[in-house]
C-alpha cells in the first residue's frame, strides 16, 4: 500500500524535508525512511552496490598495486625485458610480437600488451579514467538537466519552447552519433571558450561530451514533473508568502525532484561508463597512451587473434562495473519510485 502512496506523497511533502512528510504513509514514516527500509530488504542490490565500491576502491588504489606489487607504471614499456614465471625466464613481448599472457603473480598479473606494458596496472589506471569520466559526466548531466528542467517547467511559455525544441533536436541524434561527432570535432584542436582552454587529448573532452549527450534523457522527465509540481498548493502557498521564482524553484520544487534524480544517478553513471567505452573504441573518446577500459578493449580487439587476454580483462571489468551499477540502480528505483519508467539509451 505504501508503495502506491509514494507519488502522492511527493506533492504533499511540504518543502520536501527528508523523513518529515505528513502524507498518508504507514506508521508516519516518510518516503525516505520507507525507501531506505525497502533498500535494506534487498540484499542483492546492496551486494552489487558493495561490489561497485570495491571496484572503485581497487581503481583508486591503482598506485599501490603499481608501486608495491607490479613495480611498474601504466606508461612504462618493457618491450625488451624478461620476467621469471614458474622459475622460467620469459620475454615480456615475444620475438613474434605476441605479448605474455596472465602470469598470476605480482609482475604482469594479467599479462602485458604489445608495448610490454603491464595490463593489470593499466586496467586499474584505466578504471580511474573510465570511472572518473562516468561519475563527472553523470554529475554534469544531472546539473544541466535540473537547471533546464526547472527553467522550462517553471516559466513555461517561450522559455519552455526554446528549451524543449533544443532538447528535441539533441534527441534526434543517437547518443553514440552525437557523442562521436562532438568528440571528434573537439579533439581536432581542443576547446577555446574565453578563458577556458582544453587540449585536444584531454580527458575533459569525453567527460563534457558524455555529460551533454544524456541531458535530454533526464531533462525531459524532470520538466514534466516540474510542470505538475508548480500547480500544487504548497507552491501557491510559497508564492503567497512572497517567495520569488528562484526561491520557489530551488527550495520548494527541487526537493520534490530528489527521488527521480537519485534513481537516475546510478543508471546515468552506468551508461556514461558504457558510452565512454564505445567512444574510445571508435577513437573519439580517451586518447592513447592515456588508458581507459574503452581504448584498452579497442587495442585488445585489434589483437584478439594472438592475445585475447588484452580484450578480455578490460571487458570483464567494464561489464562488472556496469552490471553492479545497473542492479544497484534497479534496487534504488524499486525502493524510491517503483513506478518510474526510466530509460537511458546506449
Amino acid at each position, binding site marked *: 500500500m505504501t508503495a502506491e502512496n509514494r507519488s502522492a506523497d511527493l506533492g504533499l511533502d511540504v518543502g520536501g524535508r527528508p523523513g518529515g512528510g505528513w502524507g498518508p504513509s504507514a506508521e508516519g514514516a516518510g518516503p525516505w525512511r520507507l525507501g531506505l527500509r525497502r533498500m535494506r530488504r534487498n540484499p542483492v542490490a546492496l551486494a552489487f552496490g558493495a561490489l561497485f565500491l570495491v571496484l572503485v576502491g581497487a581503481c583508486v588504489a591503482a598506485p599501490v598495486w603499481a608501486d608495491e606489487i607490479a613495480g611498474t607504471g601504466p606508461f612504462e614499456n618493457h618491450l625488451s625485458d624478461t620476467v621469471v614465471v614458474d622459475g622460467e625466464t620469459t620475454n615480456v613481448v615475444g620475438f613474434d610480437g605476441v605479448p605474455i599472457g596472465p602470469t598470476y603473480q605480482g609482475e604482469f598479473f594479467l599479462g602485458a600488451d604489445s608495448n610490454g606494458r603491464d595490463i593489470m596496472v593499466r586496467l586499474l589506471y584505466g578504471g580511474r579514467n573510465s570511472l572518473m569520466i562516468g561519475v563527472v559526466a553523470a554529475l554534469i548531466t544531472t546539473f544541466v538537466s535540473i537547471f533546464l528542467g526547472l527553467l522550462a517547467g517553471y516559466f513555461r511559455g517561450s522559455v519552455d519552447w526554446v528549451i524543449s525544441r533544443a532538447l528535441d533536436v539533441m534527441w*534526434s541524434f*543517437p547518443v553514440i*552519433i552525437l557523442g562521436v561527432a562532438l568528440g571528434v570535432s573537439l579533439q581536432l584542436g581542443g576547446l577555446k571558450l574565453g578563458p577556458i582552454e582544453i587540449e585536444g587529448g584531454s580527458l575533459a573532452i569525453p567527460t563534457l561530451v558524455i555529460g551533454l549527450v544524456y541531458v535530454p534523457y533526464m531533462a525531459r522527465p524532470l520538466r514534466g514533473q516540474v510542470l505538475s509540481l508548480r500547480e500544487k498548493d504548497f507552491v501557491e502557498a510559497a508564492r503567497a508568502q512572497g517567495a520569488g521564482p528562484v526561491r520557489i524553484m530551488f527550495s520548494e520544487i527541487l526537493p520534490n525532484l530528489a527521488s527521480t534524480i537519485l534513481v537516475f544517478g546510478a543508471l546515468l553513471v552506468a551508461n556514461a561508463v558504457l558510452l565512454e567505452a564505445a567512444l574510445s573504441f571508435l577513437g573519439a573518446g580517451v586518447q592513447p597512451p592515456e588508458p581507459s577500459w574503452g581504448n584498452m578493449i579497442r587495442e585488445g580487439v585489434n589483437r*584478439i587473434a594472438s592475445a585475447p587476454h588484452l*580484450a578480455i580483462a578490460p*571487458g570483464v571489468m567494464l561489464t562488472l562495473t*556496469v552490471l553492479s551499477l545497473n542492479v544497484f540502480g534497479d534496487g534504488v528505483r524499486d525502493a524510491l519510485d517503483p513506478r518510474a519508467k526510466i530509460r537511458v539509451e546506449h
Partner: protein
Amino acid sequence: MARFVLRRLAGMVFVLFAVSVLTFLIFNVIPNSDPAVRMAGRQASESTIEAIRAEWGFDKSLPEQYVTTMKKVFTGDLESQFTRLNVGEEIRKGIPRTLSLAVGAAIMWMVLALALGLFSAVRAGKFSDRFLTILALIGISMPVFWVGALMSHYLGFKLGLFPNGGYVEFAKDPLDWAYHLILPWTALSLLFIGFYSRVLRSNVLDTINEDYVRTARAKGLSERRVMVRHVLRNSLIPIVTLWGLDFGAVVGGGAILTETVFGIQGVGQYFGDGIAQLDVPPVLAVTMLIAFFIVLLNTIVDIAYAALDPRIRLQ
C-alpha cells in the same frame, strides 16, 4: 486529423532544419583547427593550403558554406576530403548491409524477448525467473563491440562454427547471407533482449491482475488462451512503440559498433572509418542522414498513434 498531420509535419521540418544546422556547426565551428591545413598534410607549402582553401570554399562565410554543404548533401555531390570518393555513393552501397543487420536483429530480439519475458512472468519468483533476470541484466551491461569481438574470435575463428566476419549479399545466396549475419545479429540483440524481456515481464505481471483477465479465467478459457489473447496482447502495446524507436536508434547507434567489429562494411562502418581519418564530409553526411531517419520515424510513430487514439490529436 489533417490539421494534426500538418502541424506535426511542420514541426518535423523545423527539427530537420535545426538538425542540419547543428550538424554543420559541430563540424565547422567547434573544431579549433584549419581544415585546409589538415587536408594538405605535413610540410605543405602555403600556396597548396591556399589552393585547398579556395577549392573547398573554406574561405567563404559560414552561412555560405552551410548553403553549399547542404546543396552538396542533397544533390549527392559531397566528396570525401581524403579519398575524394563520392559520399552519397559510398553510403548507398552500405545501406542494404546496415538494414540487413538492423532488421534481422530487431526481429531476433523481439521474438526472443517475447519468449523469455513471457516465460519469466509465468514463473515469476521461481528459480528460472531469477536466473533469466540475472542473464538479462548481464546482457544489458556488456558493451556490444566487446561481445561481438569475443563471439567472432571464439565461435568464428577458433571453433569455426560461423564465418569470421564479412558479408554476403542476400540476392546472391540468402542462406549464406543469414549464416554470415547470425553472430552480428546476436551480438546486437543481446542488450535489447535483456531490456525488452524485463519490460514485458513487468507488463505481463501488471496485466495479469486486471479484472478482464479474471473474467476470462472465470468463463473457463484455457490458461494458454488467457495468456496469449488477453494478457500478452495488452502487454505488447508499450513494447511495440519502443520497438519502432529503438530500431531507429540501432540503425544509427549500435550498428556502428557491430559493423566495425564484424567488418560488415555498412553505413556504420563507413562512419567509423571516417572518424578514424577525421574525414569530415562522410561523418557529417551519415550523422545528418541518421538524425533525419530518426526524426522521420518519430513523426510516423506519432501520426500512427494519433490515428489509433484520437485523444492524442488534441494535445
